[in-house]
């Protein structure tokens, strides 16, 4: 009898904490979505009335739309650059047993352990010492470095799962290396590439520590702009931007899930 009591208490505790945890995971996103439809002029919750006014206001706010566009461009460039360079590197490193390959792999992963603030500052210092002007290009360079670890891990995992016999077969049947890559390798690692592009894009779009040091006056990015707005006042337009970001991310997740099973890929990283 006593045992079932202990078990019941245990289940109740586990269940309660899990419920709290799930609520905690979900609540902030819901709160942002709800507050973005407020008709009021403060972040009062629950909203006193409902309207789309902040979304309309957002569309008319050049000071937010411009950084948003800049962020999208920077993220797209950093994603392409990290996917091409990182993908090629992952293919080269995956089966190599050379010591230098392991060393390079560790190097490419290290932006993940380095505090991003330190990396942002170090880039600013090196560009200054070398007399290189800050621009959108220097920002893309910085973002690419922090996106590469995701590409290396996720594409690398796909390559590991690839059966090398397929490549050998294709080559011995007379196909060229390029044809084999295009028709055999690429389709088989497609999911890993798609998932890593998705994560790389979000990583760049969301990055603050690197942009904080590298963004010049003309390349203002969205997260920094939002951060600056929130430091000064609690502007409801931020809720509308957040609402748009949440909905676009959800749409992106659904697409990526259908196309590449992205959640499994991220879970494995």
């Amino acid at each position, binding site marked *: 009898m006593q045992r079932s009591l202990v078990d019941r208490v245990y289940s109740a505790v586990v269940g309660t904490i899990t419920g709290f945890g799930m609520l905690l995971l979900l609540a902030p996103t819901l709160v942002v979505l709800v507050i973005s439809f407020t008709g009021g002029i403060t972040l009062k919750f629950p909203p006193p009335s409902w309207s789309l006014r902040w979304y309309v206001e957002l569309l008319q706010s050049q000071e937010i739309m411009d950084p948003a566009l800049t962020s999208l461009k920077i993220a797209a460039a950093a994603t392409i650059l990290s996917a091409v360079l990182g993908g090629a590197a992952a293919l080269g490193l995956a089966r*190599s047993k050379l010591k230098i390959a392991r060393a390079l792999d560790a190097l490419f992963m290290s932006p993940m352990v380095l*505090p991003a603030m*330190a*990396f942002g500052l170090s880039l600013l210092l090196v560009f200054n010492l070398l007399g290189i002007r800050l621009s959108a290009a220097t920002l893309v360079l910085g973002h690419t470095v922090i996106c590469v670890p995701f590409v290396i891990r996720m594409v690398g995992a796909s390559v590991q799962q690839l059966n090398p016999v397929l490549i050998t077969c294709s080559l011995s049947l007379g196909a060229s290396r390029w044809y084999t890559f295009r028709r055999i390798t690429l389709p088989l690692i497609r999911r890993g590439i798609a998932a890593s592009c998705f994560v790389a894009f979000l990583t760049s779009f969301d990055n603050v520590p690197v942009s*904080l040091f590298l963004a010049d006056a003309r390349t203002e990015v969205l997260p920094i702009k939002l951060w600056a707005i*929130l*430091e000064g006042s609690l502007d409801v337009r931020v809720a509308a931007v957040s609402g748009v970001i949440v909905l676009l991310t959800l749409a992106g997740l659904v697409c990526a899930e259908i196309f590449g099973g992205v959640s499994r890929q991220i879970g494995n990283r």
Partner: protein
Amino acid sequence: MSPADTTASRQLLPVVPLAALFFAAFVLPLAALVLVSLFRDPQFSGLSLVQYVRFLSDPFSLKVLSDTLWLGAEVALATLFLAYPLALVYVGSSQFMRTLITFLIMLPLLTSTVVRTFAWIVILGRDGIVNSAMLSLGFWQAPARLLYTWEGMVLALTQIQLPLMALPVINSLLRLDGNLTRAAEGLGASRARIFITIVLPLTLPGAIAGWLLVFAAAATAFITQTLVGGGRIILMPSYIYQQAVGVQDWPFAAALSLIFTLAVTGIVFAIGALSRRYVRGVDAA
């Protein structure tokens, strides 16, 4: 070079572009960071270790560092407390529940940090959810200050970093041999006892991996620290930013960055190494 060596090196050819990029945009900057930290003053006149001496002899700076590391440890512990029940429910439930929990975990992971932090401003603010609920229920007489407090910051960071803990813990629970828990159950152990004597020790490596991820992420979370913690709580990331951009004291900012990096990675590697030793002990037993 033998033919085998040539093929092996030729395989590395696609790695060259990225290696070049990393040399220019990662290795070189870090070298510059080390170099700049060795300058005596912001005018770069002469080399010395004065920035490091300045940090180590300044109680304020040392407090900023210890507060930051403590924040990371506290948040990591809080996520650990939430992640285990979540993972236990995950492994014991149907496919539908598993998908739901995965979705809930992925959601904050993929939502922009600024958005997640903004949500916490709405929740904890003066007119926020917690305050209006407590006031209307009559628990509180006046709105409490929740934003710009240490506790508020820990709570927000716990939610924001929870996915980093939940994923490795779930993965290690999934790898656990079910026969062990079934055997214990058959021999009459309570579920709490099974958890403490079997599940927890065997999934500890996953928990430690998650702990280290959250620790590093929470200690370096500039946005959440500055927006939810507010200007009065100074932690290493905002200290570095203030010294570099506000005061323009690049040598000191560089030294701060290096000390912070060494402290965080040092703790991560030390605990990682200790846990690997512990895991070997489990295998040998």
